[in-house]
């Protein structure tokens, strides 16, 4: 039933899949961190329409399925004449979807720093940027790191969505190996092991970060 020979016979497929899963997750992490920061800033500006825009973005993407977000890029854009590969549309979809969660994590982190601190910093002569840089952000980062690390874990798992749009990730290749060998359980078992290889260290690191930052915080 479970035969590790499969992993070696199809090592090229599995390694290619693992690499693409990792790439998609890393690109989406970097992208969603940047996008999420922008959205978090939008949600906290004094300008009401921008704040409203930030809120709409977060609520929209948190309440629709990831697959639908991916379909917007994979099926929707071609209808406008823009054709993206499964890997690209999947990674963009992951980025946009995850950025809504990261925006909320960042906002929660910044809001957790008492307003009195930035008021004190401002009244002692620091500029807004200096206040952010030296007072608010160093404290916020401690609160923000564990949830973002958790989002990265989710990203690795969610990247399997690429398999649905032929994105050449681990899930996609597991399906290829399955259809070539008719060993479904075995093909999936190897893919599961490779996923665990990525996710178990990540979830361990998340828990460690949570503990450590809770102690110093």
């Amino acid at each position, binding site marked *: 039933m479970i035969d590790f020979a499969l992993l070696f016979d199809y090592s090229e497929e599995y390694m290619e899949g693992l690499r693409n899963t990792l790439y998609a997750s890393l690109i989406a992490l970097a992208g969603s961190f940047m996008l999420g920061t922008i959205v978090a800033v939008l949600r906290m500006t004094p300008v009401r329409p921008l704040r409203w825009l930030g809120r709409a973005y977060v609520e*929209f993407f948190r309440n629709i399925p990831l697959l639908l977000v991916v379909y917007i890029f994979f099926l*929707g854009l071609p209808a406008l004449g823009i054709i993206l590969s499964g890997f690209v549309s999947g990674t963009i979809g992951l980025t946009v979807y995850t950025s809504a969660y990261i925006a909320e994590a960042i906002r929660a982190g910044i809001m957790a720093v008492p307003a009195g601190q930035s008021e004190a910093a401002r009244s002692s002569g620091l500029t807004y940027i200096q206040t952010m840089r030296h007072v608010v952000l160093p404290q916020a980062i401690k609160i923000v790191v564990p949830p973002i690390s958790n989002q990265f874990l989710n990203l690795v798992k969610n990247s399997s969505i690429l398999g649905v749009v032929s994105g050449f990730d681990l899930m996609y290749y597991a399906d290829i190996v399955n259809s070539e060998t008719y060993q*479904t359980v075995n093909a999936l078992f190897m893919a599961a092991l490779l*996923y665990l290889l990525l996710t178990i260290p990540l979830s361990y690191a998340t828990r460690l970060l949570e503990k450590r930052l809770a102690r110093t915080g």
Partner: protein
Amino acid sequence: MDFIGAYSPDNLSFLMEGLGMTLRLALLAIALSFIFGCLIGAIRYARVPVLSQVLGAIVGTIRNLPLLLLIFFARFGLPELGLPITPFWSAILALTVFEAAMISELVRSGLQSVEKGLVEAARASGLSYMQTLWHIVLPIGLRRMVPPIVSQFISLLKDTSLVVIVSLAELMHNAKIIMADFDFVFPILILVASIYFLVNYTLSQVARRLETPQH
């Protein structure tokens, strides 16, 4: 883009049938995963020897795997092991196993958040362990778990869309069939997004109402 053609009565009723299946899947999986999640969470909270460790290992593994892989396994792997299963029940099985693992962790941390002093006081005033769990720990813990559990239910509802890979006629599957017509892609994407949004947003607003103020 053809909005009028895309929103023809036939297409709309086809999508509504899909929504019906999505809701049926979600409700059944929510009920089952809540029951199993509470059970597993309580067992792990109480540190039942052996059982607690075994469940911990299983929960840890499942939480670290993509749901898509579990759905695929339930639908195509189980028959290979001699367990034939219909698309509907394979979807229910995979969703329940995955979400129960998630919920069990929420339940466990909710129970653990109940102050130790309360448990000791209950025990000291003569309640048995089970009575303490039932009358003190569960009511307090459960109330604190409401927000994370509801957002887990929203995740579940969104995750039902992954069932497209087993060709079950739920909302996303039916939408995809209609979107085979190029002119219908955008109108249908907009409509389907609105449907998911409405259902999930309503759920989250109801949850906010349910959230009783903490004393």
